[in-house]
């Protein structure tokens, strides 16, 4: 081996590898200028596979911030305005976590976000390191609130509650029609929420006298649903139960129509498109009579209807991502208001004791147990005459259920 003189390492190489250290001395940059205000960190997957949902969530959060500020801000802090610090998790948990750290260091007193369960698990853990309050907007996995992290709150329901609710109400609907339905098939997307939901459903449906004759998981994306449609056709279940994301749900619904499949009902649970205005508008024929058990707003609440109009005026479809995140921000703001401070412990205590009820959701007053809002529940919807109606629970209903599906 040739022997080289020990040369001075060039500045270029040296600078290159110590740039990170130099950069560390500067504070992380932010998307908005520093201002006196209550900073709320918003972490959502606005690029990557979750882009549509992430953007809807972000819109909901920004609407909430605008509404709060228009109504005078946080009065107990002298009318301090809320300021949203935006971050993109790129649909990846590790990016979500690092963005959460960035927002917290940039002054965020609380984090709202996640959207997907896998991302929310990472962002909440990151926030837990500084005990920063984190309200999960959507993420339905039960695991999110079962880790004993005191800073984590979820305003909406998890899939365990949703599935139980779905089963109970299906039994009610079935009984009211004389129990025509005896069998069901579950079609679900094969990642966290679909698998978890299907598991709960398949355990509880037999208790209500409905036999689950087949469970079919499929990937996201799935390019073609004909196989699944053929299996449905051959097994002839009374009830078809999909648990999917929007795109797959649409393809499934279209394919079922192509294959001329008739069932007594399509009863989705967290069906991605079934309670979506977009789906109803674009596929009125395929959508008619589809039932869903999903997140929904209280149709009888004036505030909720006003927000729907406001969202649609912006050209957005009023989807669950919007109002769930809207309310997550509102819940946090209400806690800050009651705590009279942005101190972590105070806000967490305020969140834990929250009884906030001005949410326009079919929830009743908030009641937190281990970070999960016990009042949270889904509703049953049905597409009737080209519109999405709430059919159960009765006190929030806007229409009566049509079951079985007329031929």
């Amino acid at each position, binding site marked *: 081996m040739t022997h080289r003189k020990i040369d001075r390492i060039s500045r270029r190489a040296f600078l290159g590898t110590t740039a990170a250290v130099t950069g560390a001395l500067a504070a992380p940059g932010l998307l908005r200028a520093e201002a006196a205000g209550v900073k709320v960190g918003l972490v959502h997957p606005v690029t990557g596979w979750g882009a549509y949902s992430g953007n809807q969530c972000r819109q909901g959060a920004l609407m909430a911030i605008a509404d709060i500020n228009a109504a005078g801000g946080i009065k107990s802090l002298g009318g301090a305005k809320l300021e949203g610090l935006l971050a993109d998790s790129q649909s990846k948990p590790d990016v979500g976590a690092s963005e959460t750290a960035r927002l917290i260091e940039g002054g965020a007193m609380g984090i709202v976000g996640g959207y997907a369960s896998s991302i929310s698990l990472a962002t909440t853990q990151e926030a837990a390191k500084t005990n920063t309050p984190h309200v999960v907007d959507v993420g339905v996995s039960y695991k999110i609130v079962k880790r004993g992290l005191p800073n984590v709150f979820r305003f909406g329901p998890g899939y365990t509650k949703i599935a139980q609710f779905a089963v109970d109400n299906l039994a009610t609907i079935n009984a009211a029609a004389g129990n025509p339905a005896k069998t069901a098939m579950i079609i679900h997307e094969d990642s966290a929420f679909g698998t978890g939901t299907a598991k709960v459903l398949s355990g509880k449906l037999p208790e209500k006298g409905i036999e689950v004759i087949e469970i079919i998981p499929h990937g996201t994306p799935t390019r073609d649903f004909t196989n*699944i449609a053929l299996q449905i056709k051959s097994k002839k279940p009374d009830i078809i139960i999909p648990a999917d994301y929007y795109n797959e749900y649409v393809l499934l619904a*279209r394919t079922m129509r192509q294959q001329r499949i008739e069932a007594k009902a399509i009863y989705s649970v967290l069906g991605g498109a079934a309670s979506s205005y977009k789906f109803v508008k674009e596929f009125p024929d395929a959508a008619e009579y589809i039932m869903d058990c999903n997140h929904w707003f209280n149709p009888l609440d004036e505030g909720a209807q006003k927000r729907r109009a406001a969202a649609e005026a912006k050209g957005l479809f009023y989807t669950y991502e919007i109002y769930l995140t809207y309310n997550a921000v509102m819940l946090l703001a209400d806690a800050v208001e009651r705590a009279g401070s942005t101190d972590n412990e105070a806000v967490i205590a305020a969140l834990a004791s929250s009884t906030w009820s001005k949410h326009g959701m079919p929830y009743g007053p908030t009641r937190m147990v281990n970070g999960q809002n016990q009042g949270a529940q889904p509703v049953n919807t049905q597409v009737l005459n080209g519109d999405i109606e709430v059919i159960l629970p009765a006190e929030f209903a806007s229409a009566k259920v049509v079951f079985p599906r007329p031929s």
Partner: protein
Amino acid sequence: MDFSILMPSILNGITTGALYALVALGLTLIYGVLHIINFAHGALLMLALYGVYYLNRLFGLDPYWSLLIVPPAMFVLGYALQRFVIARASHGRDENILLVTLGLAIVIENLALFFFRSDTQVVNTPYAFDVVEVMGAFLPYPKVVAFFAALATATALWALMTRTDLGRAIRALAKERKGARLVGIDVEHIFAVSFGIGVGVLGIAACLLMPSYYVSPQVGNGFVLIAFTIVVLGGMGSFAGALIGGIVIGVVEAVGGLMLGESLGQIGIFLIFILILLFRPQGIMGHQA
């Protein structure tokens, strides 16, 4: 396994496979002949799908009429990309081409996200729910059309490659670049034309796919791996092979789905891919190297 639905499943697999083959035909030219590992294939398909969508939304143009507009437009895009970006940036090294196309894929997907937003869009055609009954199976009309379109496109490509001067030039280029230059072939131009044709075929695929599917900025990702599988399975550079390979993959996917479930059934595609690579890497129609 339920045998009564096996036949309809296989028939459907054939039509789905034909759609996959359409997507793979372009890659056959790009990868099979030019040996460009084009990671941007899915993103380009997505762009073409958006083209079909907007032509429908803004001008009410049926996707099949868009066959007159989208493929030529995609050809121009492909030509430009190869001539002015990929060729320059790759400096002839394979790993660079891979990175350049990867970078392009990121750019295209995210620009689409920026301009078109993330909503999923569909085109509703009056014939979307029409079916053709074959042996008791309901085959959706758009997919039957796609099947014949795939046959036609593969034939046209084969004719192009074997019966025209352009085709001869492309084949010469693929075999021996220096020699091709020596006999007067404008190498950069022909390379770009080939790439352009490959992308143009994606335009054809998009017109045929749109009635059965949807478009969003991420939609291309679901097709990239399958396209590469088909190209290798069919035999690099063989259009007939890509057609057959696509149909085989479609049927494997369908039967695998019935036997193992839709989720696990996807494994069939990749197991076949691995087996072909190990035991018959020249593919179905390829020649032993």
